[in-house]
């Protein structure tokens, strides 16, 4: 239709808003004296190395695990899949925090067991943590590619005389390269934008340095660093857009039926991963809780977190609705929807830097909750849009057409057909934003109003002050929130696709 729908107008405003932080950064960085120096080179190489090691580590852990949970008939397969995907839901700074406290001389492991462990920090520490918390990206994307891959080529290779493992190496892996690449790029993105892990591990990456500059009132230098980081992020996003999905027709995939002892042995090999990524943080926080009690944890921190998250979720959903609606309306709508995805590529610390400056220019916003909520919404809007849109996609145009033909006006069709059918997506999208915001650290650190402590920022203060024991309650609450997020993730779209794959095998 040639008409310009109302949803387009609203979407255009929101899309322009998404550009807003980038524009601010450019304005701010133009004041910067230093464009690039030796120090930058070190930061850049640290960041790139962290990204590279994370990607390699994520592939080394993720691909074998994907093969295991997809092709091998193990007992309680769904349980293992969820357990192995669980680190995705945990913010990696929780891992970094507990690992930092657990390892090394005087670390908790030595305290409890008396076994001396080497300290874990710097590039090595950051890379280990990052790989442990991002491999599920690779696991899930590889699994998706594997489960649609027809087995007949492997059978052909085997009957032509090739052993099993080389068949998998030569016949399976080359065909799922794109699936692996997609997950690896997500892991790389995470490594680039995460603030907590390198900060706690003491590795000078862009995100950590931006925070340092911000604290020493070098806001324009922080903006310059932010822009440099965005260039790298942009590069990764570009690569990501080039990765295409599989073109192969889906078929019945390989299945191995190991003997019980073989299955148990295979599962045993996953144990170190589970122990490190999930059990260790839980154990450390529990240990602290047992040893030091609740500390002086003030429950208003949790309430603050919940309050801010609720507001952010509410506004994200309100803004996501016209966007999702515009995206199914036509090409222009889809473009505007895509634009809001910028927010997802902007690391939290960068978003914080941009909006801090906006706050300084617009004093009525400075140090207000509204500015913090704006940062959350800009950053996590894509989550809400994505979830809502995937539920609107299922209602292709024909249902609305059917309603129109029966005599309903566009408004009535929206109220009676589109809205009720997307309700599930709206609730899920809102919940996802809520849970993400609960765990958000860097933007909250920069933008949170004075005296407005949340779970994540409190954890950070505890780390800075060195009173690790006080992190028990916020740490455990954050793990609990993450578990909720995981449950939600698997109860919506992804879980359905998992179920579907299981069905197909029968």
């Amino acid at each position, binding site marked *: 239709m040639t008409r310009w729908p109302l949803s387009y107008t609203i979407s255009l405003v929101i899309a322009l808003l998404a550009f807003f932080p980038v524009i601010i950064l450019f304005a701010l960085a133009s004041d910067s004296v230093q464009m690039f120096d030796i120090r930058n080179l070190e930061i850049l190489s640290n960041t790139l190395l962290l990204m590279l090691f994370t990607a390699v580590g994520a592939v080394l852990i993720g691909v074998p695990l994907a093969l295991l949970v997809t092709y091998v008939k193990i007992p309680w397969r769904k349980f293992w899949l969820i357990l192995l995907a669980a680190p995705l839901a945990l913010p990696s700074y929780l891992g970094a925090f507990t690992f930092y406290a657990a390892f090394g001389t005087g670390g908790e492991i030595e305290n409890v067991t008396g076994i001396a462990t080497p300290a874990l920090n710097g590039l090595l520490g950051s890379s280990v943590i990052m790989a442990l918390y991002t491999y599920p990206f690779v696991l899930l994307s590889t699994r998706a590619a594997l489960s649609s891959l027809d087995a007949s080529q492997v059978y052909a290779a085997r009957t032509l005389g090739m052993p099993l493992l080389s068949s998998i190496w030569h016949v399976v892996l080359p065909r799922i390269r794109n699936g692996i690449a997609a997950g690896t790029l997500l892991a790389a993105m995470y490594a680039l934008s995460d603030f907590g892990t390198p900060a706690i591990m003491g590795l000078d990456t862009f995100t950590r340095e931006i925070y340092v500059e911000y604290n020493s009132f070098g806001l324009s230098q922080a903006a310059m660093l932010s822009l440099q980081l965005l260039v790298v992020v942009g590069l990764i996003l570009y690569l990501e857009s080039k990765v295409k999905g599989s073109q192969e027709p889906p078929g019945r995939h390989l299945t191995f039926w190991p003997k019980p002892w073989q299955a148990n042995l295979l599962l045993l090999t996953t144990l170190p991963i589970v122990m490190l990524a999930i059990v260790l943080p839980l154990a450390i926080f529990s240990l602290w809780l047992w040893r030091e009690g609740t500390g002086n944890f003030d429950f208003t921190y949790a309430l603050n977190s919940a309050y801010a998250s609720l507001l952010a979720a509410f506004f994200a959903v309100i803004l996501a609705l016209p966007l999702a609606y515009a995206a199914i309306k036509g090409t222009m709508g889809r473009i505007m929807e895509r634009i809001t995805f910028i927010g997802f590529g902007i690391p939290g610390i960068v978003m914080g830097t941009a909006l801090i400056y906006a706050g300084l220019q617009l004093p009525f916003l400075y140090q207000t909750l509204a500015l913090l909520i704006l940062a959350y919404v800009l950053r996590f809007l894509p989550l809400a849009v994505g979830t809502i849109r995937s539920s609107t996609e299922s209602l292709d145009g*024909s249902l609305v057409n*059917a*309603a*129109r*033909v*029966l*005599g*309903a006006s566009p408004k009535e069709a929206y109220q*009676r057909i589109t809205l009720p059918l997307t309700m599930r997506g709206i609730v899920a999208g809102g919940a996802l934003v809520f849970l993400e915001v609960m765990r958000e650290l860097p933007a909250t650190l920069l933008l949170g109003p004075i005296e407005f402590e949340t779970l994540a920022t409190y954890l950070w203060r505890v780390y800075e002050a060195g009173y690790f024991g006080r992190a028990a309650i916020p740490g455990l609450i954050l793990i609990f929130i993450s578990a909720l997020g995981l449950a939600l993730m698997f109860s919506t779209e992804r879980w359905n696709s998992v179920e579907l794959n299981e069905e197909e095998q029968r």
Partner: protein
Amino acid sequence: MLTINNLSIKYGHTTVIDNLNLELASDEILMLVGPTGCGKSTILKALAGLIPIAQGEVFHKSWTANVKQQIAPEKRNVGMVFQDFALFPHLTVEKNIGFRLTDTTQADRWIKTLGLEAFRHVKPSNLSGGQKQRVALARTLAHQPAFILLDEPLSNLDAALKDDLRWEIRTALKTAGIPAIWVTHDQEEALSVGDRIGVLRAGKLEQIDKPEFCYSHPVNRFVARFLGEANFLSAEIATGKNLIVSDIGFEQVVEHAQLSGHVDLLLRPEDLLVQEDEQGNGKIVSMRYEGSSRLYQVEIGEKLLKIRTHHDVSLQQGQSVSVKITTTRPLTVFEQL
């Protein structure tokens, strides 16, 4: 009832429908049939107001749609039955059927007529394909539209179901007294349920007439082939309008033939008779058993003819046969290519 004048529809720069003229009488079922991609569904969408028209006009007694004045679907008093049913998944059968009705009389009537009483409170996802399409039909009829558009209503259903539902839909439309345009790619469906059929090719209407007329007097070879199996025999129209088919030694006077000299004669497999004959110039090449009939391929000279017989006529492969034209209806001839 509904008049379509010079209708053209474009997708971007591609013309999908070109200069279509059509009229729907107030009590008829008009079938639009054509191969996939000929634009038949596009016509329905345009008539419902779901896509804009590029040229031409659509007249109805209470509205006129043209390029400047694209009437919204809800203002057209139209009913539409979709290929994928388009039932609202969150509403029960009853709520689907009574979607915009305040008075449930009509909804109850069609629930009863189409045998949906047992499913009143069921959600669409729990229905079979045939039931879904009955619900969709009931929904459309209950809203009492001035005319109904059916977009391949049976193509998502099993073969066994199609036959029954075809008649059920026709009967329901006739009972309701609502005219309909029914789009299909299935020639058998088109021939059997339509009062008239229109054959479309690449956005153009090739022929529109009664089914039996289109079948026996197609305007061109495309229509002839699309509506059923066709043999084309070369023949000659001599002076005195005498048609001579030298291949099988046949002579007949053709009426109304505007051609003379060498022509192609259209014969349906049922127009021919094949008989066992030691002296015959034909030979059986193959046989396809169809249940109630058999379809033989007979070689005469260089030509292969398809001939349909009763199912108990059994001829062996390689057997010598003679072929006769038995039809008594006026013959159709085409200019030779």
